[in-house]
Every structure is written in C-alpha cells, then in structure tokens.
C-alpha cells in the first residue's frame, strides 16, 4: 500500500466526468430514463464498468438498486444505465405529469457526473 504510484493515487480521485468522453440522458419512453456514458478508450470503458455499481446509481436517482439496469456496449465504447423514470420528479409514476421538470429527460445525467470511478 505504501508503494502506490502517482498514477494509482490519480486513479482513486477521478470522477465519471473526468473519465468519460461524454454522458447524456434521454427518455426511453415515459417509463424509463436512459443514461449513455461514452468513452474514448477501452481502458476507460473497463474502468467505468468495473466501478459503476447499481447501488450508487440508485442513490443518485432515488430508485431501488434492483431497478437499475447497466449494460456495457463495447462496440460503441459505451455503457448504458437505465433507471425507472417515475421517481425523478418525486411525483410517483407520472413522467410528463404536472410536476415534470424535463420532458425529454436530457439534463438528468448530471447526478452521475461526480460519481467517483
């Protein structure tokens, strides 16, 4: 443990926004929000897929960990995370309802950006 290189210490500090090339969110219909994480290299992809736990994603989106789907789509150098849409606005099952804050769901990736990876 005492022999950690500078690279190892860097490894610990980095957040998703620093490792991923881009992160976007969108609706997958009104029932789900889907978050696409794009990488530049296979190494970054592996790093994120190893460290991105359903439990921590669930905390970001106030959903149950069992309801978080994570897919590594290597050919796209991407990871897809899908969560139920219904808890996002705190209004029960009601995407597009009167409390909606983001109809297209395109700004809902932000809570992921500062996850340590």
């Amino acid at each position, binding site marked *: 443990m005492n022999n950690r290189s500078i690279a190892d210490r860097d490894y610990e500090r980095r957040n998703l926004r620093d490792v991923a090339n881009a992160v976007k969110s969108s609706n997958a219909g009104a*029932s789900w929000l*889907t978050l696409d994480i794009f990488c530049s290299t296979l190494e970054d992809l592996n790093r994120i897929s190893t460290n991105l736990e359903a439990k921590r994603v669930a905390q970001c989106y106030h959903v149950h960990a069992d309801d978080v789907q994570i897919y590594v789509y290597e050919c796209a150098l*991407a990871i897809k995370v899908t969560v*139920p849409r219904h808890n996002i606005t*705190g209004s029960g099952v009601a995407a597009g309802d*009167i409390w909606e804050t*983001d109809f*297209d769901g395109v700004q809902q990736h932000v809570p992921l950006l500062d996850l340590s990876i």
Partner: protein
Amino acid sequence: MIQLDQKIEANEVKLLANCTVGIGFSYTSFQAGLESKPDLVGCDAGSSDGGPFLLGSRRSKGGLTIERDLEIMVEGALRKEVPLVIGSCGGTGANAGVEKYLALVAAILSRVDKHATVATICAEVPQSLVISKLHEQKIAPIGAWPMLREEDVQNSSAIVAMMGVEPIVSALKMGANIVLAGRCCDPAIFACVPLMSGIPPGIAWHAAKSIDKGYLATTDPTKGSSIMAYVNRDGFILEPMKEDVACTVATVARQTMHENPNPFAIIEPGGTIDTQSAVYEQLDPRRVLVSGSEFLAADPYTLKLEGASQIGYRSIVIAGIRDPRTLGDLRRFLSELRVLVDRAARSMKVIPDQYSLNLRVYGRDAVLGELEPEPELIPKEVALIIDVVAADEDTATALASRASTSGNRLDLFGGLEGGGNFAYPFSPRVIELGPVFRWSVWHTMTIDPSELPEIFPIELHRL
C-alpha cells in the same frame, strides 16, 4: 471484408433516410442519395418525448419547416419513382396529424405538378376496443406505470396504437407511392422494404433501427447528412450521403442504443431486435458494415398504446429574485408564500385538491428537483416560476396572480418599505398556458395479428 462488401453491392436493397420531418436535412446530400436510386425514402415525423399536450389537445405539428422537408422528399421520391414512407404524421400520429399531412402532400403535388397514389394509415384506437381488451385482461402497464382503469380510457381525449411494419407493407403492396402513417415505431418506416425483399428480419430491423434517426448515426449530426443503408441477406452497410461526414463503428453502434432501455434487446411491435451477436466493422473511413443481429418474433403480439387526458389549466408567473437576503433564506420565503396562497385559495372557496401550486426555482434545483446534488448552494439570482394548475382557467389565473402579489409584498426580513421582491420580465405578469394533460394510457395491448387491418385502416387517395 471486401468480399462481403461486394456481395452486398450485388444484391441489395437501398434505404435513404432523413432524421425527423421539420428539423431539416442537407438538400444536396439528399439529392446525392436519390441519384443512386434508392428503393425507399423514409422519415419519421413524431415523438412522445414532448409530453402529452399535442395528443391530448388533438393538435398536430405543421408549419414552414415541415412543409420544406416534406416538399423536398415528395418531389424527389416521385421524380425517381421511389416509395416514400412518413411515420407518426403530425407529431403524435393521431388521425388529425395524418389528415394534416395528407393536405400538405396534396398541396405539394399541385405545386410540383405531379400525381401520386397516397396511402393513409390511421392509428387512433376507439375507447371501446381498449375497454374490451381491458376486460379480457389484455392490457399491461409499461415499466412501473399503474394498471389501466376504465376511467383512464374514458377520460382520454385520444388514444393511439403504435404500428409496426405490417400496415406499411400492406399499403405499399396496394400500390402506394407515398405512405402517410399514423403513430408508428420509427424502424418500421424502413424495415418494410427489406422485409418485402426477403431480407432476414434481424438484418432488416437492425438496419432500420440504425437509420431511423438519420444523421444521428454520423460523426457530425449538425451537417444534416442523409444516410443510406445498403441491405442484403448477409448484413448492411451504412454510408452518409454528405462527403465530409462519416459513419464509424461507434456512431452506428451508439445509434442502436439511442433512447432504448437495453441495447441488446430492442422491443418493436411484433418482436425484439436481438443485437447480442451483432458485429460492426469499419469498411473504410466513411462506411460501416453490420451483421449478425436476430429478430425474435413476439408471441403473443403486443401493441403499445399512448393516450392523454386533460387534468386542468395552467397559469404561470415568471419572477426574478436578486436580493441576497431573500436568496439567503429562500426556503422559508417560499414556504411562507405557500401558506399565503393556500389561505387565499380557502378565502376564494377553492378546495386544496382542486389546484396545485408548484414553485419552480431556476438557479437552484428546478431542473433536477429532489435529485439536485447541491440544493443548499445560495445562488446569486434565480428565476422563480409560480406554476398553478387548477380545474378551470379562472381559478388558475386568480391563484397565480394572488401568489404573485403576495410574494412581491412579503416582508419576511423587514425593511421592504413598500418595495417588491419580484422583478417581472413580462407584461402581462400572469401567463395563461391553457389546458394541461397527462399520459392517461402508457400500456401494451395484446392482439391477434389478424386484428391489425382493423386497428390500422388503410385508405388510398389518388391525387
């Protein structure tokens, strides 16, 4: 690799795609695509992402940008004698949208002095059908949506079913030059012709899914390039029609995963595109070859239903807040304001379940709501949107107006001295946004495929 490439060129179906009617595309790239004589031109015209308003209010999208895109595609497709398929006409794919597009196409045909056989396919389903399916327990929620109730169906101002490929194939077989489809899944617009040509369904559907957002599968979507899929039994090649953009393995694979919960299993009407065995190969700097996907037919056959119902009227006020004292204790300020509005509502004899007051604070947490990771940061200024939804417009406007005046004069910290808390950017202060809708139906309906012609009736118009 070269061998596969040649094989595809030898026996292929060519599909020319643009992104969405009304958001524009590169004219020169589209003409370049037409020059190589495609077997189909297709474009989607709708989405449910914008929320339930359009469907619920029975309106449809039109306007100059839509007419421009339609005219270029109609004229080009007829000149080259290529069938044109437009899906989800009018934005929602309700009957009014199909009728609007039919009128637009009729006007275009007379402008460009051409004749065509135009098929319309309606996708609205009557309440009686949904209710009888409900009684037969053939309606299921999508995701965590609640179970459908009969009153949800009865309160819906419109319900559409999302069609797959079958009605479009029928319309083309009936001799249509132009197909104007109601609510339609995007890939069905493009899967029709390859399926009619005997291409294996896994290849046909994956090719269609890859081009259904047109230039989003290219390296630079802002260039608006039309995109061509060359499809044969073994796979498909994607090529942008604009020389200065490219398709790469990443841009094409990323289109496969776009807006779907699962990139390996993409559910469409009638089955699922299984991409687990898909192989993406870069043929040259601008073209990608894809092969290996399967299509797993659904049994039983299900259709997605979308319905919208009105829940009231909305009136809003936009107010800027810049005073650091108010911003420093904004939560208390807003909860006091809420108390004042609730009291005013009681004095107007409006009972609590007849209105909702939503205080949206842009600059603090209006976008992420309870998910905002830093809700306690004190902003330099915010836009407060006082958002009232009530059963009728007079009540919504009265409460929004009262919230505005009460909040403006609320002297929580002392020393307001007749000044105000709210900087209003607009006159009038109260903005009436009209009727508000919710998704009342977001479910699947199990059918027998023999019911498809009745659910999606086709009409031919010789124009």
